[in-house]
């Protein structure tokens, strides 16, 4: 039984367009700021990174933990969110 949050469902339910990076499930304000500082200021840029890592959720999780200081849960949530978005729209 998956327990996805509303944020997850909101993101995965439609094309991400120009949504901010904080729209990603698992990414809050603090993590969002850290990502923006590194140039990942929009959700699609993070998507770009996810795609560069060949949509490997484990790799992406590791990358996100390093890049933003996210913990395992947050990074895993974000990875799962992006993966499902890709499954739906890519």
């Amino acid at each position, binding site marked *: *039984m998956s327990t996805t949050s509303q944020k997850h469902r909101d993101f995965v339910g439609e094309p991400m367009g120009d949504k901010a990076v904080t729209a990603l499930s698992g990414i809050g304000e603090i993590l969002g700021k850290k990502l923006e500082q590194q140039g990942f200021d929009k959700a699609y840029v993070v998507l770009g990174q996810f795609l560069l890592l*060949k949509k490997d959720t484990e790799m992406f999780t590791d990358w996100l933990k*390093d890049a933003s200081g996210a913990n395992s849960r947050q990074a895993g949530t974000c990875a799962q969110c992006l993966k499902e978005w890709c499954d739906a729209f890519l």
Partner: protein
Amino acid sequence: MSSLRSKSAQDISDLLDEYGIKHGPVVDSTRSLYEKKLKEAMAKGKKGKPSPDKTYYREEEEEVTYEYRTPVRSDGAGDSGSYMRSRPEWSEREFEHKTSYSSYLRSKPEYRGKDFVDEPAMYDTPYAYRNSYLNSTPMKSQDAPKAPKSSRLIPLWVQFAFFLAVAVFLYLVFSSMETNESLKGIE
């Protein structure tokens, strides 16, 4: 080998392949990640990725025990006559029941047939007799493998006493029955 930074992207890519690490293009944003992975792989000295965090296992495990109960439920092991058959089922059930106590309460099943499953916290249901009777039987066999958990509603000694009382009662009933054959079954 010591300084990954000075290697070209192609070298990094080749090294990743050597260690069997699946990877994408080695570009600016992915390079540091791959360098880190290579460092870990080299430190381990073996091929393959380091195991990732699995945060979903807990729920999975709960689900597994949940599913396991399904075949147990379908048996009509309610009356005392068939308690021998239900005993091994119950012992496992109780075992899982104790370990996944809270999850069982949460995952409200459609096991309407067995009330004592729905309400593990209350043994004073209409099926109370059957509950505590069946409950007491496997408790005896459960005692050795399990660590004593003091989260019982009925204390263990009460269950033992009850079990003994019922056993004595049955013995008396049995011994007072008059049959043609001898009771002990001796020729």
